[in-house]
């Protein structure tokens, strides 16, 4: 007997209607690379899956110009955009290369072709590769419910591993970010057991820029798979802001980041590995960000 039925949404409003059919426990299928496995383990997952992957609007990646000029432009990514679509998007490569890199580091071709950004955020695995990049971009998660549109910063939307603020019957429709100020650079580093298919052991997303005096005007740093709640490391950022980026400062920032992680997680079985690894990765990410080492590709383990 079928454990659940399948229905395909034709549009965003149609999907929301389907998700709110009374008496039917529905789950969103946004690619399925996680859901299919979940359904195999949990035989009572839902009554019906609502496939949103073929809704054209949910694949749109577009730049929305703000009234206030270039600095306020927003890029919006439909939640069903696949990792392959994001990696290939000229708009994302130009405005948020760290997100393109994070999406390219997911799984291998097969997973990137099916897996979606919205699925990655809504499933909120502790090791989700797109999350540190989205949090680093101060991205917003947009949700549609029968009563209207809501939005949260991704850092607040994802509360802890596998938990989000998505209300019952709500559909995550898009992720958006403000285009970083001109002169910004970004880096995404991932440490896994091998290049392809590796589950992240640790990731670092960083974004920053310098002012005319050569001091750090903006810095955002987000380690992934390091803490239960993915967030910007404010103390590490404050340690760097306003200073001239030097190798010594990047080294110190690595130490501050480790202290910041340990305060939250305490000593864990993995600390012996994670502390030196995070120290090295944060330092390397920052050196690369400020052009103090040529090629951060070498840092991909």
């Amino acid at each position, binding site marked *: *007997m*079928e*454990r*659940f*039925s*399948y229905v*395909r949404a034709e549009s965003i409003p149609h999907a929301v209607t389907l998700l709110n059919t009374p008496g039917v426990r529905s789950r969103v*299928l946004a690619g*399925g*690379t996680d859901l*299919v*496995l979940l*359904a195999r383990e949990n035989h009572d997952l839902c009554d019906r*899956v609502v*496939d949103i*992957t073929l809704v054209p609007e949910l694949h749109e990646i577009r730049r929305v110009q703000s009234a206030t000029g270039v600095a306020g432009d927003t890029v919006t990514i439909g939640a069903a955009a696949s990792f*392959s679509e994001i990696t290939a998007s000229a708009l994302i490569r130009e405005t948020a290369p760290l997100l393109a890199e994070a999406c390219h580091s997911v*799984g*291998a*071709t*097969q*997973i990137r*072709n*099916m897996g979606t950004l919205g699925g990655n955020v809504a499933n909120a695995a502790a090791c989700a590769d797109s999350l540190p990049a989205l949090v680093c971009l101060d991205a917003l998660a947009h949700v549609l419910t029968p009563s209207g549109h809501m939005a949260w910063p991704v850092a607040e939307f994802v509360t802890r591993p596998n938990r989000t603020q998505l209300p019952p019957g709500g559909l995550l429709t898009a992720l958006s970010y403000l285009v970083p100020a001109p002169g910004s650079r970004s880096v995404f580093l991932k440490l896994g057991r091998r*290049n*392809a*298919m590796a589950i992240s052991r640790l990731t670092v997303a960083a974004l920053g820029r310098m002012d005319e005096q050569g001091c750090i005007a903006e810095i955002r740093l987000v380690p992934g798979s390091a803490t239960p709640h993915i967030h910007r490391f404010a103390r590490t950022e404050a340690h760097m802001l306003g200073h001239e980026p030097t190798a010594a400062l990047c080294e110190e920032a690595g130490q501050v980041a480790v202290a910041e992680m340990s305060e939250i997680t305490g000593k864990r079985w993995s600390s012996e590995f994670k502390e030196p690894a995070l120290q090295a990765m944060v330092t390397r990410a920052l050196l690369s960000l400020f052009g103090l080492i040529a090629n951060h590709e070498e840092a991909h383990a």
Partner: protein
Amino acid sequence: MKIEFTLNGHPASVEAPADISLLHLLRDYIGLTGTKEGCGVGECGACSVLLDGQLVNSCLILAPQAGGREVVTIEGIRGADGGPNDLQQNFIDHGAVQCGYCIPGMVLAGEALLAKNLTPSRSDIREAIAGNLCRCTGYQQIVDAIEITAIDRRGEARKTEVTHG
């Protein structure tokens, strides 16, 4: 539920439960057993097929997700005479096949790459087959077979240009 789609260029219509994988549908409901189940959790690539031209793991796709779409399995990859096509022949000629279990997925990964890029570097090829595990060959012969096919197909493309140009 009734699942209708295009399979290897022909219309297919199958009555099957909604909660089975595309892999299960292909092997057990349609009888195309060329697509293999390796790990069953999207790690090994043995079950790779093309869905609307894109390489995917059929074990991680629900059968009804294929509805209205185009699926190509290893049975759909063959030469004009029904035998191996050029890529498959190169796999044979260059010792890229030992136990053979990963090969249907490998060939589809190779075809997916060559459809987009006829001038792949060896590193492009390695990346393209990164989601396909092979425990026999050590991969070098597989990379060789795909690389040689790319070179041959570039030659073919040039010949066609000259003939028609």
